[in-house]
């Protein structure tokens, strides 16, 4: 449902930004603008502003001309761009944007941060929540600048400009040009039979539409307060891929093979179909003192105005379905048409040694390293998150399950590969 606000998506031609634009249009928004360094999409109902985020003048002009009231900041350099670019876009660019927002009609700003901001490369992120501090030493220059940007955005939160940050983990989906390429290159190199580690580490991946959905929820709710008493309400488990099955009970169940139902039986069946549930049947929320919301849940206020403000917060956003890393990889490969004949498991320690050797070799030959310690860490460490905060305070639920999302992703990529093949065939014919 349209809100009649004026939206600006910074980085709107990028992977995530494009999905946000499409979602805004899909719900009928009339006033959507995009600011990006290059234009890749040409919608008649979207105003494009081409400029450089690192240029204060470009940003200010675009913001003012668009008359935007709500800004999504999704722009970010690709991994591998180097520290200088990271600093220019993530730090200077974000500062420019915040300054321009304050000097204009903008009242809300949602920033795309990263779950990598709390990952230091050495520790396992096991079901971590938003309380975890930034690491003393950032994993790399990219995440260091993302941390700086996130801090700027949250610090800017004020009555004049409401802000929050979304920390997605492992974004995948149509339009992705980084993750899928990496996985496909393993197929091309005939290396799918190798597994590093014992595949007991969990990782969170997030389908891009769900990340976009979280951004819109955050924008819409920036002025809201989540009441303390709601922390005692139960929320069900994420079932996006597992399927939604309601457990039949004596209070609500289908007729099944009952051929002569009584009025009472019909009532039970109707209750089951409608999803109506007796409040007494809702399981209580059990929290201890160390729980993320242990204190909030203890507050005794019954007023909806007493609670946690959405603005000024950071939120982890995932599919809510952590998966064993190599199962994710194998599912991609299988959907791309490849199943390894057998699997060779390499212990993590040996994998790290091999990665060091590969990096050394790359340095000597001045080639881009494909097999790095970072990649080994990615493939063997636990990295999954507790998204209760986003589910409660934003009302976020993954719309597309991991299962469905991966199918859409690989289908899209197979289409891309076919296009590339067609181009090559055409050139061969010339």
């Amino acid at each position, binding site marked *: 449902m349209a809100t009649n606000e004026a939206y600006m998506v910074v980085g709107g031609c990028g992977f995530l930004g494009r999905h946000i634009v499409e979602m805004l249009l899909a719900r009928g928004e009339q006033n959507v603008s995009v600011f990006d360094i290059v234009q890749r999409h040409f919608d008649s109902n979207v105003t494009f502003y081409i400029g450089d985020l690192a240029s204060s003048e470009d940003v200010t002009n675009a913001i003012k001309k668009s008359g935007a009231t709500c800004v999504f900041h999704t722009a970010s350099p690709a991994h591998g761009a180097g520290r200088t670019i990271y600093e220019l876009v993530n730090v200077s660019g974000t500062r420019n944007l915040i300054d321009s927002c304050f000097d204009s009609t903008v009242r809300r700003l949602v920033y795309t941060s990263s779950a990598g901001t709390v990952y230091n490369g050495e520790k396992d992120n096991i079901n971590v929540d938003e309380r975890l501090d930034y690491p003393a030493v950032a994993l790399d220059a990219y995440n260091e600048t993302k941390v700086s940007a996130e801090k700027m955005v949250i610090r800017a939160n004020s009555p004049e400009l409401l802000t929050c940050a979304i920390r997605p983990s492992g974004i995948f989906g149509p339009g992705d040009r980084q993750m899928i390429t990496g996985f496909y290159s393993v197929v091309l190199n005939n290396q799918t039979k190798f597994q590093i580690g014992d595949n007991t580490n969990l990782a969170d991946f997030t389908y891009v539409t769900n990340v976009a959905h979280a951004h819109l929820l955050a924008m819409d709710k920036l002025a809201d307060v989540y009441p303390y008493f709601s922390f005692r309400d139960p929320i069900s488990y994420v079932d996006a891929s597992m399927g939604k099955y309601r457990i039949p*009970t004596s209070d609500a169940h289908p007729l099944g093979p009952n051929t002569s139902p009584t009025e009472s039986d019909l009532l039970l069946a109707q209750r089951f179909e409608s999803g109506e549930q007796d409040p007494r049947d809702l399981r209580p929320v059990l929290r201890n*003192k160390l729980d993320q919301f242990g204190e909030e849940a203890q507050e005794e206020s019954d007023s909806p105005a007493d609670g946690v403000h959405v603005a000024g917060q950071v939120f982890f956003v995932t599919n809510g379905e952590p998966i*064993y890393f190599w199962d994710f990889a194998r599912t991609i490969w*299988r959907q791309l048409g490849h199943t390894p004949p057998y699997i060779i498991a390499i212990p993590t320690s040996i994998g790290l040694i091999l990665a060091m050797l590969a990096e050394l070799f790359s340095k000597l030959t001045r080639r881009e390293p494909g097999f790095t310690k970072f990649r080994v860490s990615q493939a063997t460490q636990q990295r999954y998150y507790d998204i209760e905060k986003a589910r409660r305070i934003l009302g976020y639920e993954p719309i597309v399950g991991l299962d469905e999302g991966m199918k859409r992703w690989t289908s899209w990529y197979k289409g891309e590969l076919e296009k590339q093949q067609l181009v090559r065939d055409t050139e061969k014919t010339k």
Partner: protein
Amino acid sequence: MGKAQKIIELLLHPTEARAVINYKIWRDTRDITDVKELPTTFYDRPTMKRTWDFLDMTSRSFAFVIKELEGELARIVCIFYVVLRALDTIEDDMTLPNSVKLPLLRSMHLKLHEPGWNFDGSGPNEADRQVLVEFENVQAEFALLDRKYQLVIEGICQKMGRGMADFAALATPEQPVAEVNSIADYDLYCHYVAGVVGEGLSGLFSASGRERPWLADQLTISNSMGCLLQKTNILRDVKEDVDEGRGFWPRAIWAKHGFNSMKELVDPAREKEALFAASEMTLDALRHALDALDYMTLLKCQTVFNFVAIPAVMAMATLDRCFMNPLLLKKNVKIRRGEAVSIVSRSVNPRDVSFMFKGFARSIHSKVHKEDPNLLRLSVACARIEQWSEHHYPTFIQIAPGQQAAIDSGTTDARAPMYAKMYASLAEKAAAEKRDAVIADLKARGIIKPMPWDEMIEVEEEDENGEKRMVKRPKAPRPVTVPTEDVSMWMLVGIVAAVLGSMIAMGALVIWLVVRFS
């Protein structure tokens, strides 16, 4: 299984052998025949003695955990179990025509109020027919129960009987046993034969006062607990059921793997497809694991917890043992006795139970075939159990028997330093409160004399606006140093020692409380 073979099997699994030895030596099993227990077990009453005999006769696995329930609960659950076993015996009986079976199932709850009623029409080969032949004993015991227990038992008996009758009515002469078609039908069948048992047990626990009153209202997770056990049994018993012409696997699962009937599942030539179908059955059962874990965290009575946890962990162990196991299609796969004993001795608190669930989930995951059509869903199903466990009981918090909780210094968990800070903060806060309380108490008892600077008087004072107001000021200025002649050295030492002791004790108590009740 011969004794020698049992010994050999134990020797092949040394940790399990140790578990059996520990169990025999240290476990203090409740003896329901003991004179001290008679006021609650009524083993000396002929009708109740006979009912206990029926329990032993019909259930080797459940009999043990039922007898362990404290107070009168054991007897009540025993009666509940035997009543439902009678119902199940009627349902199972293939020799009974529907014209007899269906009315009997639907009216069984009324027989509970008919003194002397019994039924001798069961087939001669029906294993538990004796329960029905001598049902008057069970009825007599039911009649002696408190009304609050009777209401639960007869209510469940009615619901189960009607549900069983509905499904049994699907059977026709051409198709002697009804088939389960969709997953929804499968869930409904499991609700009728097992889910309502979960509801009934929750009702009995609440009625007895040993569990919270609202546990009886937790219908969904009570049902899910029952479904987990039932679906595990249906998976495990596939060979036995097929041989007897029964089928409970939903068509929605086996049909998609290319089978036209359940009989074909045990065809050796199609073992791979059958195992993938079994894999999907396991996936469906795992759907209930989180509900089971949630249910167990709600329990507060130790023997009730044991009673619920032991079958649940046994079910997870069975799912693990059956997973991608070709033997599943050839015989009834059972968990080893040593493993069972180990589970019994470890199923004493939600933390250890969740660790066992996680262990079985990981084991199942490690056996997923790379070509399994449900690879991704199985991965997610196992992962969510692991996430549940890490959310509620982080692995890096170690609890050794007799010691306070500690954070594993070798952990790679990013949360550990944060938790350590929180623990320290909680302990410090509690210690400060304790210290203040101790000092206040010492003053009140005259051990410490109040000092002149402790007395407050009101004096008139002008503020910067020229207005006069009353403010509190010390009667005398506080000296820079404490005069040594007013406080003895030993008193100071005593106070310091008491405060330090309180800090340590309070810190330990806080940690224990956090871990014990989290």
